[in-house]
Every structure is written in C-alpha cells, then in structure tokens.
C-alpha cells in the first residue's frame, strides 16, 4: 500500500458502502412510511403523541429507561413476548413513525413496554404507575420490583386540602403525618407517555408472519386480535422487575 491517495479512497469507499448498505437502503425502504388510514374507523393510525406524552418521552430518554426496558414485541414463534402478554401482535415499523426518540432498547431487565396501556385484562392506570415509580412495588404486592424513584415526587406539607394528585396509599405505606406525596410534572409526563403506549391496532403488515401452530387449534392467523394462548399469559399486574 504505497499509494496514499488510493488508500484514502479505499477507506472512503468502504465506509460509504456500509453506510449505504444499511442506513441508506433502509431509508429508501422505510423513510416514506405513511400512516395507515382505516376507512372503517375513518381515522388513520398510529396516533401521534399528545403534547404531554411527547414530553414524557424525553423524560423516558433522560432517565435512561431503555437501559432496562425494550419497546418492541417480537413475533409469536420468536421468544415468549406475546405469551407474556406484552402485545397481541408483533411490533412493526409503522408503529414508530411519529416518535421523535425511538427507544427500542437492548436489554430486558424489566418487561417490554410497547403495549403497556393495552394489556389484558386490566392495564395499569395512572395511580398504579405512580405508586410503582414511588415505592418500587407493584400496588397490592410487597415485592420490590423496580428501583423506587422518589425523586420524581414531592413530599410536602399539606396546606389546606390534600391535593387531588397526591398518591392514595393502601397497604400501610403512608406519607409522614401532615404530609402528602405529589407527583412532579416530570412524573406526570412520564406516566402520560407510558399510558400512551398502545399498539392494539392491527396493520395489514402485522398479521401474516405467525406460523401455524403444531396443534393447530388455538391459532388463527386471520384473527390476530384473538387473545394470547390461554393460561400462558400472566396478568400484567403480576409483572414488572426493574
């Protein structure tokens, strides 16, 4: 390799090749992905994030939630994602087109959150998530499953009436006498974002890849809205580990 300019050109070409081969080609394939208009519902999907949820996504990013939680459900024959009740169909690229900070994540120390607000039978509500973030325990249990992020809450003296947003504890956990635990604005945005995560709508491309099950009875590729395998899915409220 005596020729410096030729060597330099080689470096440039190799880099461009991998960039074009992965990023540019997929941009060509997915870059113009449009929302899907459902004539039956007279509405297009996915929904765009509300203002408070978009702010919550920034909180999700700055706290590094993606270090423990993914946001992508895989197809039924690849992992136990759907058996765990994380979603009833696989995630597709169209789900993410309105997200400014896509957080697929690379680690599952806790459950996948793609479809947190669409879990069966009863998804978490605001109060559940607030308590989970504050105590680190799923409401109704005594097992620490998440780091308690008390810094997202304000422990303040009650002045006048107790705030409507103050956490209403059961199970013996209470604020100090005369105090209340109130979610900060960051906590409210984060929870609004988490409750906007809902992938229940079926796109045409999210249906076909499910293979026929061997026993052939409880699976129907044409009706992906069918509930996941009965008995296999733990109720969402039993899940959750940091």
């Amino acid at each position: 390799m005596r020729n410096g300019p030729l060597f330099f050109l080689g470096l440039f070409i190799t880099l461009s090749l991998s960039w074009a081969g992965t990023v540019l080609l997929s941009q060509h394939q997915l870059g113009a992905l449009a929302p899907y208009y459902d004539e039956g519902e007279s509405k297009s999907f996915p929904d765009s994030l509300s203002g408070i949820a978009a702010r919550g996504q920034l909180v999700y990013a700055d706290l590094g939630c993606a270090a423990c939680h993914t946001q992508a459900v895989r197809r039924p024959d690849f992992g136990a994602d759907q058996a765990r009740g994380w979603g009833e169909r696989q995630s597709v690229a169209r789900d993410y087109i309105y997200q400014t900070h896509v957080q697929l994540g690379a680690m599952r120390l806790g459950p996948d959150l793609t479809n947190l607000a669409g879990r069966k039978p009863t998804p978490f509500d605001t109060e559940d998530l607030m308590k989970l973030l504050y105590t680190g325990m799923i409401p109704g249990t005594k097992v620490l499953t998440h780091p308690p992020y008390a810094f997202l809450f304000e422990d303040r003296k009650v002045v006048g009436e107790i705030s409507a947003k103050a956490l209403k504890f059961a199970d013996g956990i209470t604020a100090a006498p005369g105090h209340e635990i109130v979610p900060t604005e960051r906590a409210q945005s984060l929870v609004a974002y988490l409750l906007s995560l809902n992938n229940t709508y079926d796109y045409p491309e999210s249906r076909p890849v499910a293979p026929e099950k061997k026993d052939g009875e409880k699976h129907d590729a044409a009706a992906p809205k069918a509930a996941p395998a009965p008995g296999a899915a733990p109720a969402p409220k039993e899940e959750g580990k940091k």
Partner: protein
Amino acid sequence: MTLSSMSSASSNGEVTATDTTARGPLLLLLGSALLWLVISGVLALVTSIQLVHPTFLAECPVFSYGRAQALQESAFIYGWAANAGLAIGLWVLGRLGGEPLRALNWVVVGTLFWNTALAVGLVGIATGGATSIAFLQLPGYVQPAMLFAYAAIGVTGVLAWLGRRNPCTFASQWYAVAALFLFPWIFSAAQVMLIWSPVRGTLQAVAGGWFAQSAWTLWLAPLGLAGAYYVVAKIKGRVLSSYDFAPHAFWCLLVLGAFTGGRHLVGGPVPAWIPSVAIVSCSLLLFNYFVVFLNLRGAFGAGGTALKLIAFGLAAYVFGGLVDAITAFRSVALITQFTHFDTAQQQLALYGGFSMMIFGAIYYAVPRLTGRAWASAGLTSGHRIAVSLGVVLLVVSLGMAGWIQGHDLNDAKVSFTDIATHTRPWLLAAVAAQGLLLGANLLLLVNFAMSACLSCCSAAPTDPTLFRQPSTMEVSAS
C-alpha cells in the same frame, strides 16, 4: 527500516526523537485516559451493585441505573478508549513514519478541549441530557465540540502519515490511519442522522446500530490492533508470520465490520434483511479474526508484561469474533438477545480485546516516552494479573447470568422476580469483577503517575532496567 538511525541524544537507543518530542502531549493523552478509566470503573461498580440491589442510590436522580450506565459507557468510550487509543495511534504513526511528530501543540489543545467537552457532557447526562442512544449518550450540545477537538488531535496523525520517510507502510499504520480518518466520518454522520435531523421511526435504531458497530469495528478495534501489530513486531524483532495476508484481513474488517451491527435488531420492527446481512457478515468477518490471530500468534508464550497483555487481548479479540458469529444466528440470538449475554460480549470486545491490547502497548510505550523504566515493577505485574482475572470473571459471570436470563425470558411462566433470583449469584460475581478491575486500574494509574513524575522531576534518566539491548532493536520495524 532501522530505528537506530533516528535515535536521539539519549544514551539509550530505544528512545527515539519521536518519543522525546512527543513526551508531553502523549503523556497528557494517556494520563487523561487512565483517569477516565478509573472514573468509569467507579460508575461500573455502581451499576453492577444496582443490578443486585435496586435501591442502591435509587433516591439520587444523578445515579439512576439508566443514567449511571450512560455515564459509565461514555466515560469508558470517549474518556478511556478515545484518549488511550489516540495516544497509541499517534505514537505508532510517529515511530513508523520515521520523523518526529509535528503539530503537537494541536494535540495538547485538542486533548484539553476533548476532555473538557466530555466532562461537560457527563454532567449533562447526570442532569438529564442523555440522548439514550447506545454509544452516543453524550448530549447533542457537546458533540460538535468533540468533533473539532478530535480533528485537532488528528492533525498530527495526518501529518505523520503524509510526511512519512518510507512510502511503504506497515499493518499498524493502516489500522491507525483508518481509525483516525473514519471516526470523524461516522461520528458526524451519526450526529446528523440521530441528533440534529433524526431519521424517521425505527430507522433511528438502524442508524444507531450502524454507528455503535462502526465505533467498534472501524475505530476502536483498529486502534487496538495498531498497537498490537506494532508492539508484537518490535518485541519479536522479526517479520510477522503470514504477514502477506494482513492487507486482506484489514480490508475485510473495514468492508464487513459495520454491516454486522444489524444482528442486535433480529426479530425487531426493521426490514428482515438487515439482521440477515449482519449474520452473513459476522461469519465472513471470521476471516479477519483468523488472519489477525495468525499474524500475531508470536505474542503467545512470550515473556514480558506488554506481550502477555497483548496475547490476552488477541485471544479475547478472536474469541469475541467467534462468539459474535455464533450468537448472530437467529436460534442462538433468541436466547442471548436483550440479556446480560450481550453485555458480556460487549465487555469481551471492549475490555478483553481493545483495552488489553492498549494496556500492552502502554506498557511498551510509556518507558520510551518518559525515558525511564516503569516506577514500580510490583504495581506493573499486580495490574496485569488483577486486570486479567477481572476481565475473565466479568465476562464469564455476565455470560452465565445472560444465558440463564435468556432461557427464563423465553418461558412465559417465569416472573421477573424469579429471573432476578436465578441470575443473582452470577451478578454478585460481576460486582466482584468490577471491584477487581477498579482496583487493578488504580494500580496502573498510580504507577503511571509515579513514572511520569519521576521523568519530570529528575533530569538525568537512570538506565532503564526493563529495556532490552538496543542492538536487538535494529531490525525491520514491522
């Protein structure tokens, strides 16, 4: 090419004009690298404790697990790996170029700006500015500054390459120049695609995967290999075995390396050809690992701290490539994806491969830069033994934890609380490993600081006892 022709006035033929003129700037780069290594070690200890004890520092938003992990990763990549890799890369280019390094003031300025920007960026992450993109966690506002600082440091390398005395080049020069040139390209491309004008939807994951993989295969791995190729050839004192294949291995790494990033997206909401191409590339890339192993196999069984560490690094680099190729397959990825096993592979590459090769190069370079032997032989061997044990323990424990976690995750009946219980013993071992690594790197920092101080404080260097006879160095450099 003989190096004796360019020996400085120093009594020892081992120390060349490149070394004496570049002493200050390169020691500055290495010193900051080691400081960041210790800082990232403290943060790694914090995150590993949080894995077994979730309430540890949980009330402190600065050290929430996600942020502490982003801090640790950034301090390791942009603090330790970048500073140390650049120091070794520039040193190799200067020595093989045959002329003293030029524009060294730019290196000093660049280093100061790079590390200041990094420190600002880390404060930014701690206070809520993280981008949450793997390997690119630093807030957007410091990234352009880092690009300019990098360019300032790189000027010296470019001049050394252009002004080289011998038009023929050596393998370590190819790797060093490639790393030096390619990083600004991938870094700026990633900034545009992910920070300034983010691409749409899951394309962000594709672009992020391309960047993270490129940062390893096109930047850090070549820097580590540049040091390893140089030191092995110098110490062994003869042409590397199967050296004719080295160019093929080099271009193989550059062409295929960045394509392998898509393996982490298997099963994800991206076009299926992306992981497929990555799986094929991982297998083809084995050619690079095989040839590098053939070239550098002289490092095995040799004495001396530098070669022992490089032999460890080489083994980890090759083994890491093999594990990457195996876990890329969908049937294996089904178990290892989203688990500690991924972390183990990353640590095997970054700590076992890159860092060990760079440690070896540092043990070889610093005595030549300071003009005297390492201050303490005890600290030197203490560091070598502790860091080797630490890396093995870390990779094995995280790998086992990940394997258990992967099997448990695929069984919908196992709750996350149970997974935490099953992996706990191995994660405790990982805490011990991080503690050991931190202790080891403290030894290196102390040893480095003592050596650097001694060379500054006393004018007349004593006879470096660790040097070999200069006469034996008068051989082809690569």
